[in-house]
């Protein structure tokens, strides 16, 4: 039995059986195909929000069986880490169902949620992968931190630091990560929320580890992202991140992203792989310990955001499978096709928030599928995400489904050809750090539309 992370590491590094990567992938696909048949799991095209609990439970069992069969592949060593049934059950038993993040007045307790539960979800806002620049990073993140409904902030470093292009695993990446930490902590302080929980996606383990610094970087109440490569793969860089957080004593967000059309197969296979990814996160990312929360993101095979009915089906089916059958604290990761400053992006945010919240998930975002500009986002998207998520907590899945179908109708034509939107300086007045009139107009229109569709939002005009 694998009892702790050091044993897991040893198996990944030198003790596990060696397998060629493509053999691992093909065996995974073959097993998924068998399991879909065994458990009678099929994709339902017209169901963006899953309401069939029995199906979700079957997906959970299939995902568990898949992980027992495949284990996790370590890409650097070509070794596989296998676990036994007892270890999977033990990991589920360990889950406490709550985790404390942030400090001082900004401390938050994130609790496990179930589908159709009316508790308020935890909102982790930010401009995810939005090409923030060193010059505007403080203002950009202040615009997020000043949103009262945002509980935590995700950030990633600028692509250029002091004029130097940042490269993975280099001193420049480390420096960019540390400067980004300083900037975001400054932004949080300027917003009057110095203790707000920060989640860093600095890049390599060296950069993430370099961020861990109670004085000017990440505190033990903050977190770093621990990645998973699709499907069910880890690498030494990711394991190093886990190891470091366990010793430094800060938190982790362990995330994974099943690919629809990839090695998991179609949407039904991706849902099963998503549940297997949950077990990978528990046992490799050590999310079974009370120092981690989890993030699930669905990646479509085509180049667009994950806001179409198929991605929602995978996210809600797998999400509900996990939240119904464990005490996991899991975030749904929001990924829109359209960019900020567009009505379409607000519709996509709302559709994502509603599907995730009624499925028992917390909220992480906003990421746009294809950022094309520098500082491609602002705080208003996080505000809208939080407002729609809170309103969605008053709904059940059936009510939510009707709203989401209406929203999808509004943007489906443009899903693979969405507008880029605008940059932070185009959307906000940089002195007052308030959204410009034109942007607020779109925001209010989106809220009015959603109220008319039945989402119990509070009007703010």
């Amino acid at each position: 039995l694998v009892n702790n992370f050091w044993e897991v590491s040893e198996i990944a590094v030198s003790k596990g059986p060696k397998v060629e990567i493509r053999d691992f992938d093909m065996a995974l696909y073959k097993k998924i195909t068998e399991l879909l048949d065994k458990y009678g799991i099929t994709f339902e095209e017209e169901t963006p929000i899953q309401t069939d609990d029995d199906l979700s439970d079957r997906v959970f069992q299939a995902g568990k069986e898949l992980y027992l069969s495949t284990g996790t592949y370590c890409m650097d060593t070509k070794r596989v880490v296998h676990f036994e049934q007892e270890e999977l059950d033990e990991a589920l038993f360990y889950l406490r169902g709550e985790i404390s993040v942030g400090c001082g007045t900004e401390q938050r307790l994130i609790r496990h949620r179930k589908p159709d539960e009316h508790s308020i979800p935890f909102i982790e806002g930010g401009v995810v992968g939005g090409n923030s620049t060193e010059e505007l990073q403080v203002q950009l993140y202040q615009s997020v931190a000043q949103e009262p409904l945002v509980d935590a902030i995700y950030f990633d470093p600028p692509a250029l630091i002091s004029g130097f292009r940042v490269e993975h695993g280099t001193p420049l990446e480390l420096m960019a990560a540390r400067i980004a930490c300083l900037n975001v902590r400054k932004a949080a302080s300027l917003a009057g929320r110095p203790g707000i929980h920060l989640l860093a996606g600095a890049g390599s383990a060296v950069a993430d580890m370099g961020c861990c610094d109670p004085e000017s970087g990440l505190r033990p109440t903050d977190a770093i992202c621990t990645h998973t490569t699709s499907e069910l793969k880890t690498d030494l860089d990711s394991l190093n991140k886990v190891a470091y957080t366990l010793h430094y004593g800060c938190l982790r967000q362990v995330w994974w992203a099943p690919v629809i059309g990839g090695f998991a197969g179609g949407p039904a296979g991706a849902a099963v792989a998503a549940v297997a990814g949950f077990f990978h996160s528990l046992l490799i990312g050590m999310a079974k310990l009370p120092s981690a929360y989890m993030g699930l993101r669905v990646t479509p095979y085509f180049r667009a955001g994950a806001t179409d009915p198929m991605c929602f089906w995978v996210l809600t089916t797998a999400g509900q499978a996990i939240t119904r059958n464990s005490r996991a604290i899991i975030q749904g990761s929001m990924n829109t096709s359209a960019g900020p400053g567009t009505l379409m992006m607000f519709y996509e945010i709302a559709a994502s928030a509603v599907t995730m919240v009624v499925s028992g998930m917390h909220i992480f975002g906003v990421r746009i599928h294809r950022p094309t500009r520098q500082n491609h986002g602002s705080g208003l998207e996080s505000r809208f995400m939080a407002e729609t998520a809170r309103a969605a907590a008053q709904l059940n899945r059936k009510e939510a489904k009707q709203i989401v179908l209406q929203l999808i109708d509004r943007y489906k034509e443009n899903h693979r050809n969405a507008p880029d939107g605008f940059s932070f300086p185009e959307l906000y007045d940089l002195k007052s750090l308030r959204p410009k009139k034109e942007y607020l107009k779109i925001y209010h229109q989106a809220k009015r539309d959603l109220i008319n569709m039945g989402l119990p939002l509070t009007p703010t005009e």
Partner: protein
Amino acid sequence: VQSDLIEKELLQLAKGIEKEDSVAVKKMVIALLEKGLRPGKILEEGLVVGMKSVLKKFETLEAFLPNLILASQAFQIGVEVLKPSFSEQEKNQFRKGTVVIGTVKGDIHDVGKTIVASMLTAAGFEVYDLGVDVPSETFLSRALEVSADIIAVSCLMTTTMQKQGEVIEDLERLRLRDRFKVLVGGGPVTDHWAKQIGADGYGEDGIEAIDVAIRLVSSGGKKVG
């Protein structure tokens, strides 16, 4: 009747590709050659028809990446059987080119690159997939070893994009730039970036990568833009 029979067998060959059945494909190609059928016809009306069908199914999510890989392998096996029988004219007609493909050093993203590799194979290219986390020198040495026409370089992170430029830089440094066309792609990569680093082509997705690759080998290649 003979012609109808042949048409039926070519259709079966295409189905063999769709079913990813390498053994059956090999047997059928041998049988068709023994019947005196022209290799070019077997390729075009059997193997290629099957691969096109798989690609179409992949685009509509009726087939997935593992199916694409297995069908490409069956296709490749069929082509290998045909190769010795090709006339000089057929060799020139059907040889699309050779591609060395991989994800750059520091980047372990595999799925997108593998999709493109399989699609290029399906389109008739001879593809050498170097995997992920590939150093620039490995791209170059393998390209020289197999006399590649195209070096296809993938990345999925903004912090690894520079490595695509490094491949071109190394080609220039070693005075090899004229020997290979460089095709770039991946999540953060744009047409603008491809131009900036001096790549010869950019493919937003697998379909576009095939079009660009064909253009690069057939026209001798033009710089992006």
